[in-house]
Structures are given as structure tokens and as C-alpha cells.
């Protein structure tokens, strides 16, 4: 029942969003024909190419045609490269996903222990340091942070390459060195958000009666923090992770540009420049599906974390 409901919602979101972006892209000036043939092409050549590409059809027909293809798993063929869009996306997606997962692991791996430690001694030195650090990190644009990190680790100390990408299938070690700096850059801002959220919620949880009673039962602070307080304090954090993942599937373009990574974000930007509508459409589909899938996953995690949510 819930799954059916979710699927219906996914389809609605997908159709609305892809239609809007289809219209938007077609309304804007410039088209693939000019992009392919150049400005000097004759009108006959342009018309013929239009027919070949199907661009002479009305907008709605083209959209429905594309949507029909999508239903059978066909993302269409790029006007510009004449390559299947699906294959291009499949090649780019793992890069973005690996970047995202690595960034989340770094952010959470730091944020949970730091948030717990800051909440345990709220108002003390560590807590105040975390407040200042997270404020600074939240005020650092990602490309500024990336530039500084490249300057330090790639240019000055030369421990990792500044740019470039080695696929995981080629060499795991090189793959990791090429993902570590972009992942840290992306993860820093999220670390700040996550640690702040967790700290605030934990401090609220630690005021609860059941925590005082756990202390009255002679349990150690460590046990109380990790086993009793962490889980009830995690809801806001999980929401934030979900929102982040949803937003980042297409939102890592800056990082991908800065570090020269062939990811989805870069693909969408390049395709917009080259008026490669169908590739952009494919990217939009991925973003929308990712958005809904992440939301669904977040609901499942909610239920696992808090039994009070399970009833519905």
C-alpha cells in the first residue's frame, strides 16, 4: 500500500518536473540545429536536420514521444553526440554517487562523535569550538574551500592530485586518492550542519526524565549517550541527510568542475551549453527519481529509528 502510494507520487513528480524542464528548455533561445550546423548553414540543411531529429514535431508530441521511450527505459539519443543518453548517464552516475557517499561518510563519521562530545559538555570549550567552526564552515562557499584545500594538499604538499578521476574499476588506490579531496570539500559543510543539529537535539534529549533515570540506575555516561540518547535525537539529522542527498544528486556541479570529475552535474551543465536537450532531460529524470527514492528511504529509516512512527 505504502509502496503503491510512493510509486504514484514518484510518477507524478517525474511527469510534472520533466514536462516543465522540457518546456523550459524549448522556450529558451538557441537550438541544437544551430549548435550542430553552425550559423552559416542553409535553411534547407537546417530543415532537413530538423526532420531527421524530429524537431519539426510540436512540443507536446515530442514530449510524449520522449516520455513513451522513457517508459521502456529508453532515455533517447543525444542530438549532438548521436549517442544513447542512457549509456552516457550510466557512465557518469557512479562518479557522482561515489562522491556523494564518500562525502556523507566523512561528514557523518566526524559529526556524530563531535556532536555527541559537544552535547556531553555543552557550553564548555569543545562545544564553543564546534559552534565557531561550524559557523565558519557554513559561511565558506564550496569552491572557496575547494581552492584552499587544493592549494594546501595538492599544490603545497602534493599528497593528492589536484584534479582528474580514476574509475574504481581501474585502480582502487588511485580512485580513492582522486575522490578524497572533493569528498572532504563537499563533506565539510555537511559536517557542520550535521554536528550542530545532533548537538542541539542531544542537549534537548539529555534533559529528559528517562535520561536522568538512566543516570539514577548507575549507567555510565558513555552508555547513556550512545545507547539511550543518540537514537531519539537522530530524527532531525536523518531529515537533513535526506534533504542533502536529494539536493546533491544534481548539485555537485561546482565540485565536479573544480576537481575535473566526469559526474552528472558536469554533464548537465555541459549539455545545457551545447543545447543537448535530451541529455539534460535525462539528468532531470535522475535528479527527480533520486529525490523521491531518498525521501522514501528516509521514511524507512525514521521507522527503524523511532518505533512510534511505525504504526502508520
Amino acid at each position, binding site marked *: 500500500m505504502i509502496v503503491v502510494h510512493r510509486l504514484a507520487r514518484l510518477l507524478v513528480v517525474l511527469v510534472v518536473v520533466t514536462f516543465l524542464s522540457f518546456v*523550459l528548455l524549448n522556450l529558451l533561445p538557441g537550438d541544437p540545429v544551430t549548435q550542430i550546423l553552425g550559423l552559416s548553414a542553409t535553411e534547407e540543411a537546417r530543415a532537413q536536420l530538423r526532420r531527421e531529429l524530429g524537431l519539426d514535431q510540436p512540443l507536446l508530441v515530442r514530449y510524449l514521444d520522449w516520455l513513451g521511450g522513457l517508459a521502456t527505459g529508453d532515455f533517447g539519443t543525444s542530438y549532438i553526440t548521436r549517442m544513447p543518453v542512457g549509456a552516457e548517464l550510466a557512465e557518469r552516475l557512479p562518479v557522482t554517487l561515489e562522491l556523494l557517499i564518500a562525502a556523507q561518510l566523512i561528514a557523518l563519521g566526524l559529526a556524530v562523535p563531535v556532536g555527541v562530545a559537544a552535547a556531553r559538555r555543552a*557550553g564548555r570549550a569543545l562545544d564553543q569550538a564546534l559552534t565557531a567552526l561550524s559557523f565558519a564552515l557554513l559561511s565558506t562557499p564550496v569552491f572557496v574551500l575547494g581552492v584552499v584545500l587544493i592549494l594546501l594538499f595538492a599544490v603545497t604538499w602534493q599528497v593528492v592530485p589536484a584534479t582528474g578521476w580514476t574509475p574504481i574499476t581501474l585502480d582502487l588506490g588511485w580512485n580513492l586518492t582522486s575522490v578524497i579531496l572533493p569528498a572532504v570539500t563537499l563533506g565539510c559543510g555537511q559536517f557542520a550542519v550535521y554536528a550542530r543539529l545532533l548537538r542541539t537535539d542531544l542537549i534537548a534529549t539529555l534533559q529528559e526524565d528517562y535520561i536522568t533515570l538512566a543516570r539514577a*540506575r*548507575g549507567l555510565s555516561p558513555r552508555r547513556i549517550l550512545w545507547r539511550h540518547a543518540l*537514537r531519539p535525537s537522530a530524527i532531525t539529522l536523518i531529515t537533513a541527510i535526506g534533504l542533502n542527498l536529494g539536493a546533491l544528486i544534481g548539485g555537485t556541479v561546482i565540485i565536479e568542475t573544480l576537481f575535473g570529475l566526469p559526474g552528472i552535474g558536469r554533464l548537465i551543465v555541459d549539455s545545457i*551549453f551545447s543545447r543537448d536537450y535530451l541529455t539534460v532531460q535525462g539528468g532531470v529524470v535522475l535528479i527527480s527519481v533520486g529525490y523521491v527514492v531518498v525521501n522514501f528511504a528516509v521514511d524507512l529509516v525514521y521507522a527503524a529509528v523511532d*518505533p*512510534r512512527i511505525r504504526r502508520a
Partner: protein
Amino acid sequence: MRRRLGLGFWLAASWIGLVLLAALLADLLPFPRYDETLAGPPQSGPSAAHPLGTDGLGRDVLSRVVYGARVSLGVGIGAVLLGLGIGAPLGILAGYRRKAADAVIMAVNDVAQAFPALVFALAVVAFAGASLRNVLIVLGVLGVPSWVRLIRGATLTFAEREFVLAARVLGTRDRRILWREIVPNVAVPAASYAFIGMAVVVVAEGSLAFLGLSVQAPQPTWGGLINEGRTLMETAPHVVLAPSVVMFLTVLSFNLVGDRLRAMTDVRESGLEPVRPAAAPALPAAPHPVHDVLLQVEELRTHFTTPRGLVKAVDGVSFTLERGKTLAIVGESGSGKSMLIRSILGLLPGTSVRGGHVYLSGDDLTAYGPAEMRSVLGLRLGTVFQDPMTALNPVRTIGAQVTEPLRVHLRMGRREARAEAVRLLASVGIPDPARMLRRYPHQLSGGMRQRVTIAMALSCRPDVLFADEPTTALDVTIQDQVLRLLHRLREERDMAVVLVSHDLSVVARWADEVIVMYAGKVVERGPAREVFARPRMPYTEALLQAAPRLTDPVHHRLRVIPGRPPDLVDLPPGCPFRARCPYARDRCATEPPPLFEDGPQHHQYACWFPRDPAPAEPGSTNDTAHTRADTGSTSDTTPTRPRPESTSGGAGPETVTGDAASGVESRGR
């Protein structure tokens, strides 16, 4: 104002002002124009002529950063004003009108938020041209959904407030309400979010510029400068660092200003500044004998340093307790009962200072370190709190919670602990205990939860059970069951029980000994039967008269204790109860009464003018019984005529009753 906003706020505001001023006056400033090549040697570091050095074409970096500020700040301020201009009216409409308008606006808003903003921004800027105006419009429009949500939220909270509802009831026109009541209140949070919004827009514009999608060269932008500079990172890092640092400081300043403005309007955050524990010396205690009893509390004190002053929450409490006995601690809310329990158990917040001694079988618990204390808590001292709804961890199963002390303290294995947990739950009268272990607290009723917390408190067979108002949050019928259970368990296990309550009927029935607390002090103490039959302290007498009885006539008006418990900050000298005491005289205002003792039963009381030890008739409505107190009295604090208001039942005194008295009253009905 200045003090509350803090130094950081003013530094940040000054930086924003400085950048803004430089951007406005860039043409007048004494440096080369941003596009003048070879103003100095290319890629030279900072020097007197070029404070931030030059870039690859020999252009002055400072000049380029200052001109870049025009774009960043222009777009930042412009886009926020645009987003606010569209979003605020929609948000106020959605929040105030609710229903149809709200539904439509929020539905459109949801779709707008699900749409990939990046694609939108990129597409528009890429196709429509990367001019200052287009970037400003795109970022402004992208901000509208957030503004609608924020303003709607702020409006909703005010639309439900009393002054707006009152205006609506009075028939004030909607437009007038909006302008007079809503807009001024929404303006404050909106202003703080405007600064945070500018930070967001400056970053967004920088991102677009970094991708080459903002204002085009030769006009410099911060994001563009950083993008250009990174190609020179190895030879001339200052070219990329200068705009990076300026951008960071500017974004930080916008965030800081917005955050401080928000904190100023947010009552919760500004009112609850964490209090540093004062480096007060441990409070000394007078020498005393250590008795051979189970629990001995000697001159226990708990003081808090608060921003308003020193609060003596517990002030010199002593008692002893033997096995198999129940000690009741009674008093109004705020009298220090619960704090006394927490003080004995060492469960105090960091802002408190504890003094005195707590002996458990002769060992001084106040000398224990945290680890030693944990070996006593739960194992020898069990605790039950007032509200079973909050006493259990909502995300853990009953089984995990009940078995935990068994496994931690008694080192039982998983299976053994489960078997013991089943026995425990059965012993507190829980049906089908094996199934109960798999349940979560929200699946249980309040009475069942309290039985579970009692089972947990008893799991390691403690010597003393502390029950802090264990039945207050329960239905009357359940209350009785739980008290009987506690009594039975005390008998079975030969425990001692410390029962905190403001419900005198509970105390009279189950306690062996009673301590009456007022303003952190013991004001009366003795065997329960004796204290209730012959209260000596006027406060105890008043408490007894405030308690409802089944023998009262149907329309009998309950007496209440006039006045409120005193403010514990800077308690005046003398007897703390004198302001509410009908028998107070001059001496009560100057000298605090010590604990007197009389009779063979060690009945103690802190009063200069105690009530007659002759058997009194508690609950009597006859006022003449008390008039003996005004024989020649010349008290200057309260009228000497004893409590005419408590029998007249006028509305005036009743509205200012202490909360325990009114609590008793409501519970009695």
C-alpha cells in the same frame, strides 16, 4: 542593545559596511581600474603599490576584488529584496487566510521546491544571457519559495496569538489587522532572514560566476576571480586567495548579523544562556555522629548560582531512615522535595554546589567519585519518577530497558536477564510479561508504564527506593494500586522507601515518618501519625487544611494557602513562611527559627510560635479555633486576624494561591 548583540555582530556589521562603501565609491578610490592591464608586473605579490598584488595580466587584484563586490552585493541585496517582495505578501496571505489561498500557494510552492533549481538557474542564465539583471532575477525568483515558507510560518504563529484573535473578535477589518498587528511582528524575523538570505545569494552568485554563468568579463565578479585565479595557484596563490578571503568574510558577516538578530528576537535562546558553575567552595557541614542506620542524611545543602543570584534549593536537611520504613517528604511545588532526592543521589546539574553528607550503611556517598557512585545507583538505590510518560525511553523496548541494569550491574547473560525481567514484571502485576518485553513504551498505558519503571527500579533489589511523586500523574484508581504495590514490595523486600508527595492523603496512609519542607528547609518532622494529628508549624497546619477529605460536606469550600512560596533568590532573614503566616510576629521577621523538639516522639518543628500541641481537628471549617493567635500580636507583615479570606472564599485570595494548594484542590474533585 549593544551588549546583547555582542562584539562579533558589530565587527561583522562594520565589515559589511566597509565592503559596501568600497563598492559604491570604487571609482573614487586611488587604485587602477579593474581592467587596466600591466598596472604592475604580472603575478607580483602584495606590495605598497598593489596591496593584494597583481594577476596574470598585471591587473590590480584589490581593484578587481572591490569592483567584484559591486556584483556580489548588488545581486545579494537585489535578489533578497525581489524574493522578499514577492514572497512576503504571498506568505502573509497563506498564513493569515489559511484554507483555499494557503492550499494553492503551498501546492505551487511544493512543486517549485521539487524542481531542480540548478537546472533552472543554469538554463535561464545560459540562454537569456548572463547579465547582472538576469542573474538577479533568477536568484531572486529562486528564493521566493523559501520566503513564502518562512513568512507563512511567522504569520501563522502571530495569527493565532491573543492580540490578533482579540482584534478579529472585535470586528477589526482584516487589512487593518494585517498592517497593525501582523506586519510589524513578522518584520523582525524577516529582517534576520534577509541577512542570512544575502549570504546564500552571494554564495549562489559566486557559484554561477565560478561556472562562468554570471556577469561576463571584463566586469570582475568574486566567483569569476576565484575561477581565474586557480589556474595561477602554483605560481601566484594570492590571486585566488584574496577574493576567497574577502568572500568568506563577507558571507560570514551576513550570517553572523542575521544569526544575532534572530537570537535577539528568540526568547528561548537569549533567556537560557548557559550558566557557568561558580567556583564556590564545597559547603562545610557541622561535625555530627554517624549512626548505624541504613540511610543517614546530614545537613544536606544544594545551592545554585543563577544569573539572578544564589538559590538555596536544599538548605540543611537531615534525617535518618531504617530498613522497612517509609519516610514521606511533603511540601508545595518548589519547596525543594525533588531537589533533595536528586541531591542525595548526586544527580544534580553542573551549576549546583552540594554540601553536607549522605551515609549509606555508614559510607559517605558525598565522598564517592562518579564511578563509585554508579556502583551504588541502581544497585542499592532505586528511583521512580513522577511521570511514567517521560520515564521510559521511547525508542527502546521494555525488555531492553528492564534487562539493562541486570546486565550492567549484576552481569547477567542475555537469557538469564530476560528470565529475571519476566519475573520482575510479573511481581509488579503486569499480565503476560514475556510479551511485554517486546513492546515499546508508547504501546502501554500510564499505569502499566509506572509499573515498568517500578520494576526497573527494583530490578537489582535496592536497599532504598526513592519514589518522587510516583502516583501524581496517574488516575485516582491507578494511584491506589501503585501505592499498594509499593507498600507490598517494601514489606516483601525489607526495603526503605523515601516517598515524595504533595498529596497528604497518600502520606498519611503509607508513611511512618514525615518531613515537611518549605523553601528548601525542613520546617516540621516527626512520626506521621503525630505530625498529622498535632501539627505544630502553621505551614503544616495549612497544608492539612488545604487537603480535601471524603468526610467534607458536598459543597464544602477548600481552604487554600494564601500567597505564593517565596522566591528562593535572596531569601530575606527570619522565617521563610512568615509572609503567608497568619500568626507571624516581629520575631519571625528577624530570626530564623531553629528546629525545636518536644514530646517523647521526637516531633520537631521550626516555629517561634507553634500551634497548640493539644489534639487539633484538621480540616475544621471553624475559624474560631485559630483566633487565639492574635492575642496582643503586632505583626507588621501580615494582618494578625487569621485567614478570613480562606473561609470567605472570595475570588481575590484564591487567584493567588500557591500551586500545590490549587493542585490539591483540582485533584480532589
